[in-house]
């Protein structure tokens, strides 16, 4: 019962804050202040956020799903589920400059594409959307096509693995 009481009290206080005249004026003041401050800042400091690059127009499927066609040889956490996308690293991570390659067939156009499975690095593992499909993956002694390796090599931020990209680099055929 005490938990219900606390919840009811919280809801009541929230409702009072959001409906009071003082609350409305407070929020209006905050808006005015923020707007004024923004107009005073140099343009370079108010640059727009950089969104994750979405999948291309002629693709089909859900890039948050392990079944998505680009992930045919991936083994790791999908950056799409970690604040990035299939080709964008999440904020605060660094893409590995070297990596391994796979070949996947795009069901939308029937073509085979070379996919670069760069890792995003420098933070502990994302832990979301673990996906292991391994098509065409080879043992670690054939590293250019091996997905058991941590590819966070040559980065400034170190080898801590965060998540995996699946970047279209061109036609395979």
């Amino acid at each position: 019962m005490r938990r219900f009481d606390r919840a009811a009290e919280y809801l009541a206080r929230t409702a009072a804050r959001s409906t009071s005249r003082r609350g409305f004026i407070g929020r209006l003041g905050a808006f005015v202040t923020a707007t004024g401050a923004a107009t005073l800042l140099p343009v370079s400091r108010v640059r727009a956020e950089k969104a994750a690059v979405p999948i291309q127009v002629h693709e089909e499927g859900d890039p948050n799903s392990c079944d998505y066609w680009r992930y045919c040889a991936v083994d790791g956490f999908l950056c799409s589920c970690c604040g990035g996308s299939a080709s964008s690293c999440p904020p605060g991570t660094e893409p590995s400059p070297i990596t391994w390659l796979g070949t996947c067939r795009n069901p939308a156009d029937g073509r085979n594409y070379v996919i670069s499975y760069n890792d995003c690095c420098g933070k502990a593992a994302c832990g979301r959307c673990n996906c292991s499909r391994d098509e065409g993956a080879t043992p670690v002694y054939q590293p250019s096509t091996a997905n058991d390796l941590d590819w966070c090599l040559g980065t400034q931020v170190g080898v801590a693995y965060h998540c995996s990209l699946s970047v279209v680099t061109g036609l395979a055929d």
Partner: protein
Amino acid sequence: MRSLRNGMLAAGLGAAFVMTSSVCAAPRKAPAAPKVPELAAEDVTVVELKDRMPAHWLVVNDVVFTHLLDGRAYIVDADKGTYLGMVPGGHSHAGVQFSPDGANLLMPGTFFARGSRGERTDVITWFALKDLMPGPEVVIPPKRMQALPLLSSIPLTDDGRFMLIFNFTPEQSMTVVDAQAKKLVGEFETPGCALAHMTGARSFMMQCADGSLQSATLDESGVITLGATTDPLFDRDDPATDKPVRVGNSRWLFITFAGAVTEVDNASGTPVAGARWRLTGPGEQGWRPGGLQPYAFHAPSGLLYVLMHEGGPGTHKHPGTEIWVFDVARQQRIARLPIETPATAIEISKDADPLLYTALFGSGTVVVRKPADASVLRKIEGLGNDISVLQAPPVAAPAAGAAK
């Protein structure tokens, strides 16, 4: 509800006491002293283990994939099904090696100065089995391959003298540590070839990208010299896994994704391919070996235990649904043992009356089985997140199976 019922009961008893006391005003008696002795004050202690690992203890490696910085190895007693202790392993934990006397675990680890960032330090640490405390350590070049665990990336020579650490930056090289003097020997280039499969006290084979094998030797100071290289032994379309099986002092079975077996002997210093056979027979082409540790060889009986599943190309990490048992000398399967829980790792104790172990990545459970029929003897549950490889300790004197 329970507290309400207890309250009512207390109120009833209280009323009864009031009624009784109003009738008879006898003096209240002190409660009788309990008839059992009082508990003794306790001292805080720390458990110590044995001086060396019994044959049926097991090291269970957990790569902790969702928190790769926190790899570790658990030590369990498979006879009793009990958890004994843990050794921390760091980022991308590969496994341990047992010192030949069985008294120490050598643990290669990767650490960062600020958790997941900052200066990287790679180090080999000696943990005494007795207290599982970190003891001596040797800092090595910060190049250790970061990958899913492969014990052949961290082998120890059979006599325990040198530890080899495979590096991938992506340049390939081998670090050598003098495990006796506990000093770094150096780093040696191994272009195009990876891992080290020991074939004697001072020799090993490496697997190369073109499907060939490279022999190499160590001298008494630990310096590596590369030797003969074979022609490519395996097709690019069906490569040998990076998990070959040692079946003799200098002999290894290299097994492809599809289950083709090639025995290779490096006794002469030049790897020689011998018998070739298959794990599958007619009508069984749909079956493949798979998992992170698909093979376990029991030297006293000469039997090979393999995790097998039904699947096609690209399923080499799929868990096994059956254990197939092979007589390696006769190159024949002697049993097919379905298992009730799929497994990605299999291991067998090295004594004459062995226990068979399996684990499924992500399950946190080691299943202890009878080797004869894979029936379940007991389960050890709650073992972390992502069990990768299982390691049974050596049972014999030094130089007999110290390195896996």
